């Protein structure tokens, strides 16, 4: 079990960094699609999307 703690630390860091990046991507994607959808809805209603621009 020589240096087991170093290996564990490295593996945890890798998984945490990848997970955080994936979550950040998902959050950014969700925000963009919501904003895009709002704009499309507003335009299709014939309104002027002043606040969104």
């Amino acid at each position, binding site marked *: *079990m*020589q*240096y*087991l703690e*170093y*290996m564990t*630390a*490295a*593996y945890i*860091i*890798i998984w945490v*960094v*990848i997970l955080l*990046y*994936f979550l950040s*991507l998902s959050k*950014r*994607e969700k925000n*963009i*699609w919501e*904003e*895009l959808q709002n*704009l*499309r809805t507003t*335009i299709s209603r014939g309104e*002027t*999307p002043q606040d*969104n*621009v």
Partner: protein
Amino acid sequence: MRRPYIPAFVFGILALIGLTIAPYMALMYAGIEKDMGFAQKIFYYHVPSAFMMYAGFSICFISSILYLYKRDKKYDIWAFCGAEVGLLFCTLVLLTGPIWAKPIWGAWWVWDAQLTLHLVLWLIYVAYMMLHSYSEDSLQSAKFRAVLSIIGFLDMPLIHYATKLWRTHHPEVIRGENFGLPLDMKIAFYFCVVTFLMLFLALLFKRVSLEKARDELESIKADIRDRQTILGQVGSE
């Protein structure tokens, strides 16, 4: 309606399967190296991360050259996304390297050629990302970033061959045809490389789809602004 992005989904599923099996391959299937013990197992994630860093920055480099030549926005999108995903893996290499180095070299960090060049590469691409985030003129920013990525790319061969060019603590990146590994370690290593490749492609395609959506959003906003300006001018006349 959200657009399904098939490449990201397919590579994501493959990466998920690979990432489930990879710990078994690295921890159980591959033998324990007698001198480094469990610290050597960092190798199975550290080296594939470095390969994916090379892949990301290479995509950025090629797309940047194409952007400078053709001035097509899609190349800028691929360059930026390649840089971001490449930077993620570059960060992983920089984080796991010192954890491996501490028990083996007795120090978290040494200022030898390879490690320093690697840190310089990371800083170049951090600057690249900052240029994208903080500049207002996107065309000017894209040109500057393209030039910066070409400069950054020149650092990569130096990193790869640093162990041959200078005396460094870091071992040679590729030592002969078989990486100097026994069969079990080699199989586990190749498995991890393929898994990381799937992960890299999944993240890259997802990031590209996100950037394309953002670009589409900006186009719609610009279009609305133009219409409002025209309507304002007509109204004032």
